[in-house]
């Protein structure tokens, strides 16, 4: 199956999901199914699924300490060690992980190799992937946090603050959120590079296109709902608070675009634990990043370490004793 097939299969899958929601709510009126039952199932699968996956990893030991050292390790006192790139204590590991998780440190290193006449190879700066990634993740995070205004009552002040900062420029009515634009732009960029960079397209699976298109679907339906096909927010919040107070209610008459949005989010939640999206949890557990470079300094135990067959010195000397004696090499047994 080539990348184009994967791409179209993913696109068709996302369109089908949109149609399912439109049909389910619009045509046969399954508001309760799409407004209550599916969201509850999705949240449950999301939470239980993620914990299950993490425990699955946690059950497997880390037999060796294998940091990828990206800076000077700690050795002689007069050589400046790099605690963030080659950590020698817990603070270094915490710092390194924080840089990785919050700032995508490793991705920031990215370069692009290009072959030229000569033959020569050059390594150009290539920060676009980093920028796209960081914009995508932070926009997504902000948007999720902003949505808390629909989930709880009264609304915490940090959420209000976040919304007002995000809508700082007060463009149009209702105000356009910067993160909406950033998410759409970044997801589109990530999608387009996957489609148009030949090497990247070659390695791409349906599992790479699908989540991007799904998230784009969520973002587009959200923006449409906010700015074009507007919905009654009072009812939307009533439904959401109902879910989160365990008193589910389904106000009649919320327009279908809302259910499309909600359904796509539910699909994302269900899909999350079974897919590559688990990198979110996995990044914390990666032994090349979260182990300290103190291998010769501190003991590290492999829980399944087992004795192996070795060739002992006695066996070795038995093989070569006479020759060793002839050559004047000391032996244990005369």
């Amino acid at each position, binding site marked *: 199956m080539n990348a184009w097939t994967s791409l179209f299969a993913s696109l068709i899958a996302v369109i089908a999901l949109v149609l399912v929601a439109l049909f389910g709510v619009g045509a046969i009126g399954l508001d309760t199914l799409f407004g209550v039952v599916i969201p509850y199932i999705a*949240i449950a699968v*999301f*939470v239980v699924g*993620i*914990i299950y996956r*993490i*425990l699955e990893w*946690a*059950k497997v*030991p*880390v*037999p060796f300490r294998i940091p990828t050292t990206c800076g000077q390790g700690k050795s002689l006192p007069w050589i400046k060690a790099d605690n963030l790139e080659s950590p020698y204590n817990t603070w270094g590991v915490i710092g390194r992980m924080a840089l990785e998780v919050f700032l995508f440190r490793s991705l920031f290193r990215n370069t692009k190799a290009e072959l030229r006449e000569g033959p020569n190879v050059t390594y150009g700066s290539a920060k676009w992937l980093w920028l796209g990634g960081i914009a995508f993740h932070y926009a997504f995070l902000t948007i999720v946090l902003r949505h*808390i*205004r*629909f*989930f*709880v*009552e*009264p*609304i*915490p002040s940090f*959420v*209000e603050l976040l*919304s*007002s900062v995000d809508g700082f420029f*007060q463009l*149009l*009515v*209702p105000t356009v959120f910067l993160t909406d634009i950033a998410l759409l732009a970044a997801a589109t960029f990530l999608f387009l590079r996957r489609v148009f960079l030949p090497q990247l397209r070659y390695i791409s699976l349906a599992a790479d296109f699908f989540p991007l298109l799904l998230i784009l679907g969520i973002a587009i339906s959200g923006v449409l709902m906010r700015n074009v096909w*507007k*919905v*009654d*927010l*009072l*009812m*939307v*919040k*009533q*439904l959401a*608070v*109902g879910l*989160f*107070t*365990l*008193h*589910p*209610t389904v106000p009649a*008459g919320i*327009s279908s675009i809302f259910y499309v949005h909600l359904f796509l989010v539910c699909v994302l939640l269900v899909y999350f634990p079974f897919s590559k999206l688990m990198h979110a*949890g996995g990044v*914390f*557990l990666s032994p090349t990043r*979260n182990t300290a470079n103190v291998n010769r300094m501190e003991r*590290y*135990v*492999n*829980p399944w370490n087992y004795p192996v067959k070795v060739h002992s010195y006695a066996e070795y000397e038995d093989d070569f004793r006479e020759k060793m004696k002839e050559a004047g090499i000391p032996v244990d047994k005369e």
Partner: protein
Amino acid sequence: MYDAGKIIVGIVIFLGAVAFPFWYNAGKAATPTPPKLEVGTTEKQCVESTAYMKSSHMQLLDQWRDEVVRNGKRLYVSSTGKTYEMSLQNTCTKCHSKKEQFCDRCHNYVDAAPKCWDCHVPPPEKKQTARSTN
């Protein structure tokens, strides 16, 4: 080596974060009942349908402002053919005179922050009972 302790802490943080809306609502004894709005008029029909006004009044008001301020037009013909003066103070707040019990309650509920009153004078507060916006 398993790092079980750290992983459990991580899972607890994750659970706490995901469950935030649940425990926050429970702590505030929130109910799914939305705030009751008091219109302050006996009029049954706004300039457009109720559903439209609920979801899109801000766009209508935005459009009115542009018509009045930029194009100098003052009259709005509704989808039912009736004519209204495009004026927040002379048309809207005539009926919707209780800003706190009507506008604010809903805006606070969904964290909408309209800029109307930055310029316009709100309708005089007529002996409003100090009910919470719950």
